[in-house]
């Protein structure tokens, strides 16, 4: 349904020389009805990836395809037609709604611009609100009069108003109170089933990603370093970075008495303007070997359906794989 092929995105550094490489050769695909989770820390490129998938920006090289259509170079009304197929749910529920429009006004606008419900616009708005669990009375409210969770529901309703096939969700619950996250996540799961949606779920909250995704992509410094099914990627990671992420997640469980917490991963996320040679993770990697400092590892399948970009992992897993 949605695929990215060898995406690169570079930005020139403002007021200086050189470039920042936000994405360095990302290739992945999402099938219809699937949910792909994307995890990573700052600088990993997940937000840039989202922007490219949504065609908010053009890649420096590589291409994005949506349902067979190449998104590169689309303009004007072709671009607008494509916009109906893929939508985004944003992180900050307050900032994502125009403070001067009521909920109903904001939703009606979408319906009208795309001429989607000629003659029955108000009804359609009521349907949309109902779909996200809000009564029609919410239509008359302004964003500042409703809670964060409700605003997020409105944001979801607005994205659904164009009847998209794919939703890109960029940290949809991170700005919400903890007690509200569960209901929004449940709503997203139910909508997915009811409407047959395909999701790209981007978050730094690894537990949430694991809860909703079919497959998970782990990104580091503009590259995908591991990709595989949800049960395997976080529970039996191939890549040392995925392992570090997993150990760093604070679990709401004090653990057995006397258990020592894992040793934290040293160092900082390096600068994308000046990435390390070879494997980008090698300066922090507990398993780094000489080859890691020189040769960049490719994303290779090491277990059925699970890929990783790591020389050490490749050696461990491919050696035992049947020829």
């Amino acid at each position: 349904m949605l695929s990215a092929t060898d995406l690169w995105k570079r930005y020139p550094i403002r007021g200086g020389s050189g470039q920042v490489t936000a994405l360095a050769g990302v290739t992945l695909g999402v099938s219809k009805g699937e949910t792909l989770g994307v995890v990573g820390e700052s600088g990993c490129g997940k937000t840039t990836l989202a922007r490219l998938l949504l065609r908010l920006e053009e890649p420096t090289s590589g291409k994005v395809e949506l349902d067979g259509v190449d998104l590169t170079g689309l303009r004007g009304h072709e671009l607008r037609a494509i916009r109906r197929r893929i939508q985004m749910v944003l992180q900050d529920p307050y900032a994502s709604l125009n403070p001067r429009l009521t909920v109903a006004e904001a939703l009606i606008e979408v319906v009208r611009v795309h001429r989607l419900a000629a003659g029955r616009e108000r009804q359609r708005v009521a349907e949309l609100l109902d779909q996200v669990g809000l009564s029609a009375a919410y239509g008359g409210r302004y964003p500042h009069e409703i809670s964060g969770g409700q605003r997020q529901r409105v944001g979801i309703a607005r994205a659904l108003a164009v009847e998209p096939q794919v939703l890109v969700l960029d940290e949809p619950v991170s700005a919400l109170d903890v007690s509200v996250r569960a209901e929004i996540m449940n709503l997203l799961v139910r909508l997915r089933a009811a409407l047959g949606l395909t999701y790209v779920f981007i978050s730094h909250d690894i537990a949430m990603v694991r809860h909703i995704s079919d497959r998970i992509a782990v990104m580091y410094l503009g590259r995908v370093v591991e990709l595989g099914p949800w049960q395997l990627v976080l529970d039996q990671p191939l890549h040392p970075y995925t392992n570090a992420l997993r150990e760093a997640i604070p679990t709401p469980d004090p653990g057995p008495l006397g258990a020592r917490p894992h040793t934290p991963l040293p160092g900082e996320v390096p600068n994308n303007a000046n990435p390390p040679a070879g494997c980008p993770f090698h300066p922090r990697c507990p398993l780094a070997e000489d080859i890691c400092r020189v040769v960049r590892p490719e994303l290779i399948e090491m277990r059925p359906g699970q890929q990783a970009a790591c020389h050490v992992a490749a050696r461990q897993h491919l050696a035992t794989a049947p020829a």
Partner: protein
Amino acid sequence: MSEVGVAIRLPSAATAPTREPWWQRLLASRSGAVGAALTGAVLLAALAALAGLVPHDPIVQHPADRLLSPSWTYLLGTDQFGRDTLARCMAGAAASLQVSLLAVGLATVVGTTIGVIAGWYGGWIDLVAMRLTDVFFAFPAILLALTVVAALGRGWFNVAIAIAIVYTPIFVRMARAPVLSLREAQYVLAGRLLGFSVPRLLLRHVLPNISSIVIVQITLALSWAILTESSLSFLGLGQPPPAPSLGQMVSEAKSLAVVAPWTLFAPALVIVIAVVGLNLLGDGLRDALDPTQER
């Protein structure tokens, strides 16, 4: 379909809220009410003058009734030519408002449009706009107005143009700044994603969200315009006599102040009322139009 999302509805959302229309909110606030009253008074006086509903003709002289202090016949007295001060004030207010509204109207439309476009598109459009406004800012405002009127000649229309020219760059700058940040606002981004055209984004999403700034600027500009028009006519560059103008009346009253103080206070008071009223009205309007302002 209702089972798709379960929500506990807030009790207050069970019925749609009743909201006051903006003018009610305006009049409910202190500054809005006072501002509306003062401005309304001046406006009414001006309209009355334009409709000819004046106690005496503002231009006709009554030589026998020169320099009379306020009485029932002449409510604000007469000037050195025996002309009714009240009628002249009303007509002068009309002239001031005429000039100011035209000038500020032009400046707002032209300036805001340029500012929004420059802020939205950036690049060389922005560069050119900014450097042009820099040129205009290099001149002191009143001097610029003077120069334009000197070049174009006397008369209310040219005064209006002069004021418009001085104020347009201010509107450009003032509109551009918030547009720069609104361009990246999440709901604008969402609009782009939903396929909204640029005109729609600008008109429905950007403009309303800079309206508070624009409204305040309009009232400031109107106040300044009234003062400038008065200054220019004080200096003799406005409408030639005998057409009444508040500034000219003040100028003529300089020499009469001791003998007939009403000839000075009346026009000055009208100016003050208009300026204060506009400022208060502007504050009140800005709050009344903003849905996020709770009372």
